[in-house]
């Protein structure tokens, strides 16, 4: 295939669009790029995919809603953020808390399986995510009749929620303090809004957020399945661990 200079220029523009932090309005230019990519005009798609791969990136999706890039699992990339770019605080505790908050936000935003297929914007509030976490922890606490007064016997995630759920707000700004559950949920939302995955709509219900297409595309393409597989592995590892403990005791 003869790839023209125009095609290479468009390929570079597509990658640049995917990397841009200010994705802004979807322009007519984007529509032209999408058309050239889908039809592989003068080798635009071939050039874009080859260039991206060399940078350690995969072009996940090119549609009129925007360009979504992800990391090529087989190559390193200078474009990938470090772990502490995702969770600023160091240590496993911060990663656990962020993971649980992210899972709760996704569960609220895409409560129904079909929501992931729908192009409609999903609305999720900070209050909703907080309640989902606190109610889930309370439910586990109630089920554990042997130790109702303590958090013994709760799952790891529930223990974290029980420990952090108490409210504490800054006197200056009125916002939830860091290292409280609400504060951590807000930090998780901030990551989504800073990276064009969600947009903050209003301050109602502790902060009302709406999903942007990139979040859905990321989950649709591989993210959702990858997360579900990881959770399944974790559940299996836990049941093996429980069985071993029981065998040791009995």
């Amino acid at each position, binding site marked *: 295939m003869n790839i023209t200079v125009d095609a290479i220029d468009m390929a570079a523009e597509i990658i640049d669009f995917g990397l841009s932090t200010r994705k802004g309005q979807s322009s007519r230019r984007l529509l032209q790029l999408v058309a050239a990519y889908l039809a592989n005009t003068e080798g635009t798609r071939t050039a874009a995919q080859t260039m991206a791969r060399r940078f350690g990136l995969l072009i996940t999706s090119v549609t009129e809603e925007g360009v979504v890039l992800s990391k090529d699992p087989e190559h390193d990339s200078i474009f990938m*953020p470090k772990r502490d770019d995702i969770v600023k605080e160091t240590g496993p505790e911060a*990663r656990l808390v962020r*993971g649980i908050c992210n899972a709760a936000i996704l569960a609220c935003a895409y409560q129904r399986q079909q929501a992931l297929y729908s192009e409609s914007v999903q609305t999720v509030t900070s209050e909703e995510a907080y309640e989902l976490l606190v109610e889930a922890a309370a439910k586990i606490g109630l089920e554990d009749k042997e130790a109702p007064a303590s958090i013994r016997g709760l799952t*790891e995630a529930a223990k974290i929620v029980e420990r952090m759920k108490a409210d504490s707000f800054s006197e200056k700004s009125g916002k939830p303090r860091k290292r409280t559950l609400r504060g951590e949920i807000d930090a998780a939302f901030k*990551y989504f809004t800073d990276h064009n995955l969600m947009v903050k709509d209003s301050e109602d219900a502790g902060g009302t957020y709406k999903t942007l297409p990139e979040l859905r595309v990321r*989950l649709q393409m591989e993210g*959702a399945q990858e997360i579900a597989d990881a959770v399944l592995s974790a559940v299996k590892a836990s049941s093996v661990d429980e069985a071993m403990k029981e065998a040791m005791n009995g």
Partner: protein
Amino acid sequence: MQSKQTFLDFGEFLDPSAQDATEEEVAIARGEFERLEAAALRNRSQTVATLSTITSIVAQTSTPPFSHIDPHTTGLIAIGHAIDSLRLLDIETSDLTVRDLEAYVALDLKRQFTALATDRIIAELPETEDIEAWGKGVVDKLLCRKEHGSQTEMMFDTESGRFYEFQHALLEEYARGGAIYVRPTAACLTLYLGTLTQGIGDIQTALAAVIQRQIARGEYHAALQTAHEHQRITRQHGENIRTLKRRILSNAGRYSWNSTVLPEIQVAQRDVEDAITADTALEELLDASMENLPKERRPLAQRVLQVIKSCRNAYRELQTLTMELPRLYSSCIASQGFASTHIPLPSMLHDVFTPLFCEVTEPKALLAACDVVNAIFALPLPPVLHDVVAETELLLKPALSAEARDMSPDSDEFLDEEDLALSIFNEMTIAKAKNTISSMADAGPTQLSDIMKTLEPEDFIEECVAAAIMISAAWAHSRSHDGMYAVSRTYGRFSCKACTGDDYLVERKGAEDEYHR
């Protein structure tokens, strides 16, 4: 009884020539008839389910004065605003935000309350704030937001004898760029515009004939009204074609070319061609009759002509779009070959959150799962490159002519690192940086990054650097800043246009430390 009735009805439709048909053929024909009946029933019940949203605008539990509102008119006016917001010539988009729609609805509600007050049904007009809140509630319901009723109904299908999920909404939010807009759904357009039983192509042809008749009779007011109806259905036509395009773009592999895509494209192309022909004929008719019209009627005829012309232009755009669809489909099939492997998608609540929260007891396993959840959102970002040389040159550039004459500090031996670093700034810059730090730290514990956020937007870039030097020097030498403010390092980072580095907490000595309490 029901099945017997259906059977009898079916019998009446039997062709007399088919009297000799075998029992098997009769059974097949009856099965086909019952299938059509079931499909019609399904369509009707789905129509009622979709429309039920409007009746739910005023809940049974509502109290006066809101219980007096007419939900049907309110809902239909709101939908009308959304339909009218669709651009005719750029069918991809609407420009109506949710806030705009809420404001329109609040305005419409106010008119209803005024009428109620005039008729003394209510004592006084509700507060504007309450009306606005109600406007918001109406829009939330039409959007079928989670907290205002579900978008999904469990419905019974008589053909399969099973329940199925039916998703419906009259309006939907969509993201364009980083902003959220609202538009009517394709189902909403069909219901609102009343084209329930006939295809839109047929309706447009019928409307064109009506306009032609009205023009021939000289009924230009009526012709204008019909032309507006024609324009609205043009929007619906655009939305239908756009929906087809969206479906292809999202997952072409789910739709068969021969049974779904090709027939829909062919219907769309034929309808569009018919509409263009009809609109062109109308234009010619209007042009021809314009000259013979009395002067006072010409402006009205011109308006009809304008509307028809805009519709014809929109149809030209739609024609281009439909012609591109076959190529789009084949491109999408080629590029989305992998999509089918990801279906069905897991549920974020039942397959992810609930097991993660309720079943994972092993801390290491939980951390591994959380890392995967977090990593999904590790987006590729362009690295931030700082041109150190250019930035240093900028900072060293003399700002005053006096500085240009003599760049060397008078007595280097008395300067420590901080003073040396600060010597490139003029006094005003250092004073501004110091004042900002002290005013913010006096109000409460503050971070260097917050100080940057205050200075940077106002273009006090040099002040940002000066503040960073002062605070980091204070921490490095284990001393307080300006003798009054304790500096401690956080694990965060700050960054501004000119510099980046570790973040510090600055607090007035003796002040209570909120962060450590």
